[in-house]
């Protein structure tokens, strides 16, 4: 299977993998995170728009995977920290 470059950020209960070659910077995930922890990153994605990362809110990631589920481009993968 083809591999894609990713950036992993640990936050709260989750390892947040962001695939820079897939993220188009639409922001849909930011709006859906129940903990409001996702915000814009300084790294740009496939279309030169900012990608996203956790750690931008007052609360931390609870590894609910909502962001992964709603991303139209499969640009987020959450791994639960056990």
């Amino acid at each position, binding site marked *: 299977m083809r591999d*894609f470059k990713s950036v992993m950020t640990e936050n709260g209960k989750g390892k947040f993998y962001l695939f820079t070659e897939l993220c188009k910077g639409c922001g849909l995930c930011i709006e859906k995170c129940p903990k409001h922890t996702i915000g814009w990153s300084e790294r740009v994605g496939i279309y030169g728009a900012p990608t996203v990362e956790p750690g931008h809110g007052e609360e931390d990631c609870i590894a609910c995977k909502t962001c992964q589920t709603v991303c139209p481009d499969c640009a987020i993968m959450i791994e639960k920290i056990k």
Partner: protein
Amino acid sequence: MAVEFNNVAPAMPACWRKETKTHKFCPGCGHGIVLKALGEAIDELGIQDKVIFSVDIGCCLLAIDFFNCDTVQTHHGRTNAVCAGVKRATPDKIVIAYMGDGGGYAIGSQHLVNCAARNEKITSILVNNTNYGMTGGQMAPTTLPGQKTETSPYGRSVEQQGEPTHGPEMVAAMAGQGAYVARGTVAKPKQLKNYLKKALQAQLNGSGFSFVEALSTCPTNWATNAQKTWAFLENEMQAEYPVGEFKVPEEGGQTK
């Protein structure tokens, strides 16, 4: 702290064709969420090698190289009719028609109506984004009352253009026993996946026509940011178009 990787696989459905990703849909386009739900449904049913996928003209045609499945491209509005023929010629295949609201409810409405009336044993998926996305956001049968588009600059007038088309309600009223009809939304991807799985299961059982409308997003033509995109879908569209199942095959009913 951020760590970079080159060898981590994204959480993509197995039947998605990785070489063609990222896909061609605009940022925030709901087509990607519908096709993720469909990919997961195909994976979970283990039917990838049996699927023949068919795309209409419209933004759906950007999915022509989306899956590792045989794929057909049809003329605008003709996807249901082509799929009915493909299914009759190769009844062991799982045939999936994929179209927009313009393709399914305007130019191709006769094919949807007659596939429903004949209870064709195909699965038809219609993406409702309340406009003609590919051609620049013109008014569609699904445009909401008062909604501004390229061709309804003062808002859709019910007096002049009528009420929006409610497709699943129409199909449910027409299709015979054994049909499956539902409306999902990309705001609830898991529910949408379950509807798509039930639709494909109806085809696997040969019980009747299966039709799923997916309420979807078109941020490019709506000219909405992420917050307003979700709000338009979840407040205005879902108020006009109720989400749910409209017809399910009867227990122990007409199955092959």
